[in-house]
């Protein structure tokens, strides 16, 4: 399959670095990994690049993950695939994210979970 371009959105530089490393160690071929510190930066990168999958935090300054995902929905984008990575594991948040994201992963997150999500995503693309 064609190598994927991944966008990681989180206001924590160390969390972005963690997800980047997990992505690069996963089984799926990766073309490049881009980073954004908030939803607004993410939208600019999404406009300028063809991005296959987006990992996003929820609580971020300037533009939150919820606002980013709602904007992508408003724009009617079918890609990128959307994965929420958040400390908020509440029922309320999960319900809010239904229809906005395809995967919801709770922090603390193991790198193997990032790999498993990418594998599932890749097999969805292949099918």
């Amino acid at each position, binding site marked *: 399959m064609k190598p994927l371009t991944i966008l990681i959105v989180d206001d924590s530089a160390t969390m972005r670095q963690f997800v980047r490393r*997990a992505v690069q*160690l*996963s089984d799926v071929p990766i073309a490049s990994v881009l980073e954004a510190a908030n939803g607004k930066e993410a939208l600019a990168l999404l406009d300028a690049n063809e991005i296959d999958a987006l990992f996003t935090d929820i609580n971020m300054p300037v533009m939150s993950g919820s606002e980013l995902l709602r904007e992508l929905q408003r724009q009617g984008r079918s890609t990128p695939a959307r994965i929420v990575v958040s400390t908020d594991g509440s029922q309320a948040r999960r319900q809010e994210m239904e229809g906005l994201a395809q995967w919801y992963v709770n922090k603390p997150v193991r790198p*193997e979970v990032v790999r498993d999500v990418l594998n599932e995503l890749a097999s969805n693309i292949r099918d």
Partner: protein
Amino acid sequence: MSQSTSSSALVTAGRGERVVIGIGEFAVTTSPDAEIVTHALGSCVAVCVWDPVTHVAGMLHFLLPESKLNAERATRQPGTFADTGIPMLFQAAYKAGAVKSRLRVQLLGGAAITGGPNGLDVGRRNALVAKKLLWQNGVLVKGESLGGTDTRTLRLSAATGKVVVTRGREVVEEL
């Protein structure tokens, strides 16, 4: 079917050979029909590796997390500790023809054994240190069977990479 034990050495097992390892030992086999076995895995952790292309298979059975706890023993039997044993296992696997990016790694053991000489927590510590070392070295874990309170007997198949966990005659898990 012949049996042999290994103590920190590369084993080139014959066809269908079963290699049994004990605490602080590791084995790597290049025979696609071989099995590596370890018994009575309690708070110790077994690290199993397998390359699906070359069928190189390896297993380490370590007792404690850090070699600084006993430098003399670490020199004599580095497989006793996660931080000396795991690198040794991987180096031996690479030397035998395994490729890092293809390796499937499984972690088993780390049970909480009451009355054990190193306390109830050592199993959990062993598991955490193993995961930490693997992450630091850019290796993700394919599967795991960790914790609980029961000992495990493991059989790693070089043909399939599967690990069968038994208790007595009963197969309790397959990874």
